[in-house]
């Protein structure tokens, strides 16, 4: 290990919520000038570890040292004062404030006791430039920025606090490929300046690219800490899930060209975001949507679900014209549509409502008996689907916000599967969920397809598209750049098409 004194040291730290231990007697050490990857499934204890380090929660037991001093942070402000800065997965930006306000939210430059807005703008310009985000104007409101820019602003904000220990929690999940490279460069620069970095990610290739040291957590315990190159990827995955992985992805069946077309879109256009998109999805087929983030994939799914206004072009469902007038009519189509949204917390779930109500929400009409709901029928239907999706819950009446990320995502899936959809649209459903749940989702999609459901699956993870989909449509700048199938469906072609690098060849 490194000669330097640890920047963060935890001794026998435990955290219990109710009777359940989220962290159990954990010893953990991170050194300055090292990038330390923190790995584990959701619910393994990573988030709790980070929250304790960043002062969001306090440990039930054990001791925490920062820079050799025993600390007991009561809130994030105290942690920041000690040099521990966290970029959270859930963005901590303030949407109604300007970028400049956000970057200096805690200790703005002052003049005469008041905020020096010119100095603050200057500071924002410098910080944005330092991460290559000159395209963001300091006076822009954060709510007007796309998600990928917000995440960069979030990183700039953390850098502005001059951290000694920087914690990145899934901080690159929404970034474009170019931005990810910039963030990597920044992280490496910080490392050379002696900053300690804790890096949480579910993307194995990111960890391979960045980490010097990695620690794997499982079930609230630290399993192993090892240096780069000491363990193979499959060994790491093995440690994380603690069970043998035979197949990453379910087998693909032979192509089924004879199946009828479930959904057919012709010449869909919507402003600058969708340009002349035509696609067919057959029953029983899983069609992937790929490409860089923000090339119109989300808009395409929303358009098909009827959420966007003023979409031109036509959509047919099993040969019959379908009018795009909103989710309710999409759900009543001859093959009902379902959309698994991108952000489960805002578009997928009613967080304070209980698990049963969330799952039955989209299909309440079938439980109607006269003027009231048939509670017994609802309850048993919900229990059946929870069983079939293996959702881990303690109580149907518990708020859905008490579940882990992976189980929350399963609740969203359960809600839509309950409507018996014939066409399922998925918007990056595996983002931020653990490996085990991901595999269950892949298997679920394949099972649905085998039953004749048509699936349109947008993912930011190329490996997932290759492993899961029968065909992949790669989008670029609002249109479908290329359709990949069979042997052409590999990482290289997806990346090439996504970056539009073979443009000239096609034109020639």
């Amino acid at each position, binding site marked *: 290990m490194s000669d330097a004194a640890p920047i963060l040291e935890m001794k026998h730290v435990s955290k219990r919520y109710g009777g359940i231990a989220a962290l159990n007697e954990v010893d953990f050490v991170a050194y300055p000038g090292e990038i330390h990857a923190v790995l584990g499934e959701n619910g393994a204890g990573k988030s709790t570890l980070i929250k304790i380090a960043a002062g969001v929660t306090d440990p039930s037991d054990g001791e925490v040292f920062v820079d050799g001093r025993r600390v007991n942070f009561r809130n994030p402000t105290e942690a*920041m004062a000690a040099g521990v800065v966290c970029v959270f997965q*859930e963005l901590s930006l*303030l949407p109604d404030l300007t970028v400049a*306000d956000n970057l200096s939210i805690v200790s703005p430059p002052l003049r005469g006791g008041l905020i020096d807005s010119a100095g603050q703008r200057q500071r924002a310009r410098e910080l944005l430039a330092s991460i290559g985000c000159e395209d963001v104007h300091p*006076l822009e409101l954060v709510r007007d920025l796309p998600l990928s820019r917000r995440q960069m602003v979030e990183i700039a904000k953390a850098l502005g606090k001059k951290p000694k220990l920087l914690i990145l929690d899934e901080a690159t999940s929404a970034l474009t490929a170019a931005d990810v490279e910039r963030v990597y460069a920044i992280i490496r620069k910080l490392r050379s300046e002696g900053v300690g970095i804790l890096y949480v990610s579910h993307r194995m290739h990111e960890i391979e690219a960045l980490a010097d040291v990695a620690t794997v957590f499982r079930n609230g315990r630290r399993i192993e800490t090892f240096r780069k190159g000491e363990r193979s990827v499959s060994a790491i995955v093995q440690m994380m899930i603690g069970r043998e992985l035979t197949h990453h992805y379910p087998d693909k069946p032979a192509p089924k060209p004879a199946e009828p077309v479930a959904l057919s879109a012709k010449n869909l256009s919507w402003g600058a975001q969708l340009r002349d998109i035509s696609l067919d999805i057959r029953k029983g087929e899983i069609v992937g949507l790929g490409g860089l983030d923000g090339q119109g994939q989300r808009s395409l799914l929303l358009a098909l679900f009827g959420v*966007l206004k003023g979409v031109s072009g036509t959509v047919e469902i099993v040969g019959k014209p379908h009018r795009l007038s909103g989710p309710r009519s999409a759900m009543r189509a001859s093959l009902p549509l379902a959309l698994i949204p991108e952000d489960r917390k805002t*578009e997928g779930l009613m967080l304070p409502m209980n698990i049963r109500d969330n799952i039955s929400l989209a299909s309440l009409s079938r439980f109607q008996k006269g003027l009231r709901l048939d509670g017994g029928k609802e309850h048993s239907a919900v229990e059946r689907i929870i069983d079939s999706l293996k959702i881990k819950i303690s109580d149907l009446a518990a708020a859905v916000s008490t579940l882990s990320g992976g189980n929350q995502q399963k609740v969203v899936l359960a809600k839509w599967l309950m409507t018996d959809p014939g066409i399922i649209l998925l918007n990056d459903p595996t983002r931020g969920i653990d490996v085990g749940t991901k595999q269950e989702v892949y298997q679920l999609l394949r099972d649905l397809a085998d039953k004749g459901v048509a699936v349109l699956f947008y993912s930011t993870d190329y490996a997932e598209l290759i492993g899961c989909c029968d065909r992949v449509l790669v989008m670029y700048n609002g249109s479908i750049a290329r359709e990949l199938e069979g042997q052409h469906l590999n990482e290289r072609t997806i990346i090439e098409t996504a970056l539009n690098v073979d443009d000239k060849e096609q034109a020639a």
Partner: protein
Amino acid sequence: MNDLRHRIHHNGGLLAAIGLFIVMFIIYVSNHPVGLTAAVATTASNKAVLLALVAMAQTLPVLTRGLDLSVGMVFILANCLASVLVVGTIGEGFLGIAIVLGAGALAGFINGAIIVWGRLQPIITTLATGAVYYGIALYVRPGPGGDVQSDIADFATGQLFGVIPTALVVLLAIVLIVWLPYRNSVLGRAAYAVGSNEQAAYMSGVPVQRAKLLAYTLAGFLAAIGGLMLTFNTYSGEASAPIAGTYTLNSIAAVVIGGTSLFGGWGSAIGSIFGAFVLRTIEDLLFVFDLDPLWQPLFQGVVLLAAVSLGALRVLRIRNRLELFA
């Protein structure tokens, strides 16, 4: 140039409120039998400044995504206290003013303390404390009356240099001395942050609790200034429940007309001032057009609806139905 574009974008609601007020005020003045004399302006100002101050007070809790249903009651409490305390010599009068303002700030602080430390919801907290404050007002002044220090009162409701209504100068001074520094202070910024996204604010190390405490305390302080100005207009105090209630509700209307979001994090007290002016000018318009004053509530309601609809015009441009609910 780019900066300017952003600034206009940020202040759209405020600019709309100012525009609406100017249009209404021009209609009013051009139809007034006498025209815009110092006396006409002073009368209009004295009335408008009262609601403007209470609306400014309301703005602060609203920015933190709260609401203060007690502003009208603090306004009346200050009025009743002033009618007892702002008496005697000018020196004694100023001492009384200081006590009244302190009492207003204390009332606001109590609201904030219950909301922050008791973790109760602002609406129900201020509904309850408002009733308490009204009860105290009633105890202080069971029947209308009082004899306010008339030199101070005459000055505050008169004109400076014979032309400028003093009440407007007072309002301007409060904007310059209280609002603008607050807007640019760390805790003022924190108030916007809390209203915008309280969790993110907390995670960013924003002093959430102090921001709320200050917002409610300042709200009580500003409402008390309003109560003082009321006292200077009437030379007396009256614990009137209808006036307290009307001012509370009109303050919310003025805040909305002024472009402040009831969802917090967005808006300004200057917008609320113009929102208040718009509401008062409706009354004056009814007067110059010789309409029955009984129509006033109806027209105020129509203007409020129109203002809210104007703010909702963006809905027509929205092409992603999800944003309707954002």
